[in-house]
């Protein structure tokens, strides 16, 4: 069991309630530095809500979310979010910003000097396998889905945050591009050692990337463990997800 200081993110008895409905129900979870924790679950199971609790886009009704040893309610919300990379499915690239401006956003908010931002952007574009001189000045609408998502990842990494939150980042891509990005991302993560909380409903993606898988159902964390432990789980929801992995017989 790692010491307290070695926990990147910790949820302590967290509830989140909207109109008497519990979207997150008594969540207890420790996320260790350098791991990829997959939050797996059906739509509406509370996965996205959980990551929004981590960067304080929403605040727990009860309980505490600790990030790097400090409760999210004690963090200045803007400092907290600038310390956490955030990638969402719709990507949310700014259409009126070039690729370079998009990636340089958080450094710009942090007041970096222009040259330093520009160096960083070129470095990041290389990291996500996009040719810098070709892509830096382009606008998002000039990119393919896969390229945009790469830019989204680069943007999240820009200020070198210790933690990354990823909400179905590859969900909208075709399966081949998705696999390509999953491979690259896994390699990137091993190289950089970031702590990653990754939301998906794709069991295959979960197994491909996970250090551990947390399974959510109706706002509760019903299973948490390594991929091997997940395979051995008797939990009905886990079983239901595992069934999706088999290739159906073609008659």
């Amino acid at each position, binding site marked *: 069991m790692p010491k307290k200081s070695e926990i990147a993110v910790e949820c302590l008895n967290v509830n989140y309630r909207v109109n008497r409905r519990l979207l997150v129900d008594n969540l207890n979870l420790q996320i260790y530095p350098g791991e990829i924790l997959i939050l797996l679950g059906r739509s509406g199971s509370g996965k996205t809500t959980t990551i929004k609790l981590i960067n304080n886009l929403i605040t727990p009704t009860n309980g505490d979310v600790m990030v790097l040893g400090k409760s999210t309610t004690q963090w200045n919300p803007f400092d907290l979010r600038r310390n956490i990379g955030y990638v969402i499915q719709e990507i949310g690239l700014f259409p009126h910003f070039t690729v370079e401006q998009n990636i340089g*956003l958080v450094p710009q908010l942090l007041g970096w000097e222009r040259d330093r931002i520009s160096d960083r952007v070129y470095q990041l574009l290389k990291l996500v396998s996009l040719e810098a001189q070709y892509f830096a000045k382009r606008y998002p609408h000039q990119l393919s889905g896969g390229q945009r998502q790469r830019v989204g990842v680069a943007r999240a990494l820009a200020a070198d945050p210790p933690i990354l939150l990823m909400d179905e980042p590859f969900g909208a891509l075709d399966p081949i591009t998705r696999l390509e990005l999953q491979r690259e991302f896994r390699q990137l993560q091993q190289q950089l050692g970031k702590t990653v909380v990754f939301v998906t409903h794709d069991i295959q993606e979960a197994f491909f990337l996970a250090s551990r898988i947390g399974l959510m159902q109706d706002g509760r964390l019903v299973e948490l463990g390594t991929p091997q432990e997940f395979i051995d789980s008797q939990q009905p929801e886990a079983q239901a997800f595992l069934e999706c992995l088999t290739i159906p017989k073609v008659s």
Partner: protein
Amino acid sequence: MIEFFSRYGAEIIQHTLEHLYLVTIAISISLLIGIPLGILVTRKPELNQPILGFANIMQTIPSLALFGLLIPLPIIGGIGDRSAIIALTLYSLLPIIRNTYTGISGVDPAIREAGKGMGMTDLQLLFQVEIPLAMPVILAGIRVATVIAIGLATVAAAIGAGGLGVFIFRGIQTINNQLLLAGAIPSALMALIADFGLGFIEKRFQIKE
């Protein structure tokens, strides 16, 4: 024709400039009031009803009546430019407030969430993301307001504020179509030029998604 211009040319230029003056000042004031109000409404939805309601009511008052109603009012009213500018401002507010509000609320929520999630403050989000993305819609509102104001400013002559309406009223009273057109044509041209020019700027701000 030549005779007409040599007789009225200087006067046409003078009234055109007056007209332009009334409209420019009125639109500038409604921008200064309307855009912040439109932004305020996106932040405080409970103000939506009263603010847009007020602007709506202003537009329903018949223009001649509004100009007339301002004459007896102290400080803001009276005969002349001041009343005319205030009336035109009140008319211009609605499209400006409404389009600012619509433009900003129309920004893709995913973009707003991404910005917020990366640690942008509300003001950074407003100035770096929401306003630039809402710009075409805001400009469309300014365009509508300007074209309407140019037309309405002809009524300003009725309360002694000058402008191209002077010709129109004089033309009506003396049943002189030439005089009437000397007011109507420059006013229509001004509206067309404003429409075209602002439309052009609007297109420049269009953002491809």
